[in-house]
């Protein structure tokens, strides 16, 4: 993949010059020694295990907080100064650039981590217990911190740090590693932080291990929490890595390629379904889970609304091409993919049917439910045929990430309420919870009728889509007129 990391070498040369480093090294060494002395003098019986705990905490702070800050600031400066553009011109692969930034910019944090890791190991040795658990936790800390550093790199590439203090720019993404360990215990399973980010002492190993083996339900399977955390780390970390890598390679394109968009949507869908199933099956659900669901769904809602609005540049590109090639201007065109309009129309039809069905007496509702299903199914088939017809007539949809994301998210929004008509029981409720707006409404109004929620979500989706299309269509017509006038002149 890469033979060497020139950027990592360069950043390490800048940051690890001995003349600037020896003060840092001495400082950390002094603090470690002072820690040991203070805890020993405090009279605490288990002062050595306490030292181990402090060393683990500082390792996390150095890598996750210090490292993220260095990366956020460093990448932001590289973008502002234009150095990243220089690097994009070189044959360096996006992997070499990304990993060069992470390992190079956070090199001082990794050095500090190494010092505290060695110190913690030395404090552990007298306990005569196998150091494997300590090494495992240190490894998980590095893995978790690397994940947060990737997230920081990605967020800075997409939105450079705007927070500037007098001396340094601070990336808001350093809040992530700070906040996550302090969330409620139940919902910590949604994060890549290992559950045992407590003070892991040799004496308490047994109960701590038992806690680590706490069962987590995921699609009816029971997993140990540690495995679940690792799974999240690997899955989310891989996703984040590939997206950051893509963003480094293509400055002016959306962050997600088609493959990545589908992969991300599918993975998030799977994870959230699993967590929702667990929530549904617990006898005493903790409200914190809904908080996460609401936050997540709100984010998806806002992304969807922005995603369906075609960018102005795309409209202009399309219009210029039409004028240059003297093409007939069809109603369906690249900048406002026909699929969006189709889905909006289908959604309106389904919503109107559900509203009508909801007004019927309960006995009749049961009778019409199956025919409603058939109608909804037919509408979906119609939508697919319409899309196929447009494709067949060479009305090309924008083959870019925005459109794919829109389609995936539209399906995510609309289909669960449609599937809800199949089952009003527990599974149906769960499906309703998956739909972003439905979940949001349910969280705000817990006793709302599921039917009403389903209808509301479809109607709002459709109205938002049509509204966006209307405004962009108006803009497109105006631009086409101006361009044609210029050409005729």
């Amino acid at each position, binding site marked *: 993949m890469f033979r060497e990391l*020139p*950027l990592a*070498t360069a950043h390490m040369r800048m940051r690890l010059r001995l003349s600037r480093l020896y003060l840092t090294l001495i400082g950390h060494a002094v603090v470690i020694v002072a820690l040991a002395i203070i805890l020993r003098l405090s009279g605490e019986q288990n002062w050595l295990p306490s030292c181990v705990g402090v060393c683990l905490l500082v390792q996390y702070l150095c890598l996750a907080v210090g490292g993220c800050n260095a990366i956020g600031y460093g990448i932001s400066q590289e973008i502002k100064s*234009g*150095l990243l553009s220089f*690097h994009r*011109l070189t044959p360096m692969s996006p992997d070499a650039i990304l990993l060069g930034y992470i390992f190079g910019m956070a090199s001082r944090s990794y050095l500090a981590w190494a010092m505290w890791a060695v110190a913690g190991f030395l404090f552990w040795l007298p306990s005569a217990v196998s150091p494997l658990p300590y090494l495992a936790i240190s490894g998980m800390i590095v893995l978790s911190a690397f994940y947060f550093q990737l997230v920081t790199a990605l967020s800075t590439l997409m939105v450079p740090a705007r927070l500037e203090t007098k001396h340094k720019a601070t990336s808001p993404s350093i809040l992530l590693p700070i906040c996550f360990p302090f969330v409620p215990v139940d919902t910590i399973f949604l994060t890549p932080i290992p559950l045992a980010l407590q003070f892991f002492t040799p004496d308490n190993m047994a109960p701590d291990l038992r806690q680590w083996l706490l069962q987590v339900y995921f699609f009816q399977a029971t997993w140990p929490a540690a495995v679940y955390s690792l799974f999240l780390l690997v899955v989310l970390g891989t996703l984040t890595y590939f997206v950051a890598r893509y963003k480094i390679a293509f400055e002016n394109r959306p962050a997600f390629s088609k493959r990545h968009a589908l992969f991300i949507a599918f993975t998030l869908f799977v994870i959230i379904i699993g967590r929702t199933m667990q929530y549904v099956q617990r006898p005493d659900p903790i409200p914190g889970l809904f908080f996460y669901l609401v936050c997540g769904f709100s984010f998806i809602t806002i992304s969807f609304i922005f995603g369906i609005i075609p960018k102005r540049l795309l409209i*202009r590109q399309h219009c210029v091409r039409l004028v240059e090639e003297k093409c007939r201007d069809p109603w369906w065109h690249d900048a406002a993919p026909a699929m969006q309009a189709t889905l909006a129309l289908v959604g309106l039809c389904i919503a109107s049917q559900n509203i009508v069905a909801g007004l019927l007496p309960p006995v009749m509702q049961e009778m019409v439910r199956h025919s409603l299903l058939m109608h909804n199914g037919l509408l979906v088939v119609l939508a697919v045929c319409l899309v196929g017809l447009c494709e067949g007539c060479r009305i090309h949809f924008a083959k870019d990430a925005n459109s794919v994301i829109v389609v995936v998210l539209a399906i995510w929004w609309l289909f669960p309420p449609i599937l809800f008509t199949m089952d009003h029981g527990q599974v149906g409720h769960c499906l309703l919870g998956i739909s972003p707006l439905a979940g949001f409404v349910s969280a705000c109004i817990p006793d709302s009728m599921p039917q009403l929620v389903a209808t509301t979500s479809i109607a709002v989706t459709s109205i938002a889509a049509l509204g966006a299309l209307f405004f962009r269509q108006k803009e497109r017509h105006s631009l086409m007129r101006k361009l044609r006038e210029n050409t005729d002149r």
Partner: protein
Amino acid sequence: MNPIIEVDNLYVDFDNVTAVAGVSFSVERGHIFGLVGPNGAGKTTLLRVLATLQEPTLGKVSITGIPLSDHAEPIRRKIGFMPDFPPVYEELKVWEFLDLYAAAYDVPRETRRARCTRELERVSLMEKREALVGELSRGMKQRLTLAKTLIYDPPILLLDEPASGLDPLARKQLYDILLDLRQEGRTVMISSHILSEMDKFCTAMGIMEKGKMVSAGKLSEINQEQGKRRVRVRLLEEDGVQQKMHKKFPGVKSTTLEHDRSWTVVLSGDDRTLAAYNKHLVTEGLEVCEFTPLKVSMEDILIQSGATHVS
């Protein structure tokens, strides 16, 4: 014709602004192409498109015959791009900065040191090898960036205002380097405001205004298209000669007496017109002691092109 850069109907849009509108031109191998235009004409955007840093809205660009839209990667290895304010790593030493980009461009480890030394000698920065980049003056940083641009021997150079902010001596050193590069057969595209200095080494030019290319091509071809030639004439007598210089020769557009008492005559036509005019002067009884056709200056072309906002 052996164009190494070909641009056809290029558009570049930024939201509500069209930075480049329908630009078409070509640059032949081994030429130094001067790109002139006022601020906001679209020169930097055009260079960034050629350097594959900016995606065009519309149009075709090919470099060494490779279309830009399909194959950015192989093109990047053939291009050296130097922006107007080149960013540098202030806390790296000069040799470390060059070593970074030598490694980035896959210069073999065994030859890296020699290559860095060669480029430092070319830009006269050997004595600053161990200095931090942040300690260098503005002119030295420009030269260092030029060295970094040349470290992997790209056949095409795109330089955006390389002389801006440099004192006259530093500019002269830079232009000497460019002339050496031309001798080596490299193709250079350079944008600048300083027409009089670009005159000394450019063999082709393009004039941009409000995103459009007003005129582009080899200097001699542009001038021939406009059908004008300039000649310096020195006569033994000085008084009452102007009328004779114009008389019965309608091809004379203007005659100007210079400070050194020579005449600059602008003629419409080609080399035959020049020869005919020389004969005409002798026929009129004027004693000609110098008759030298003058090289077309970029300023002349600029004025004749009718570009209204170019400085």
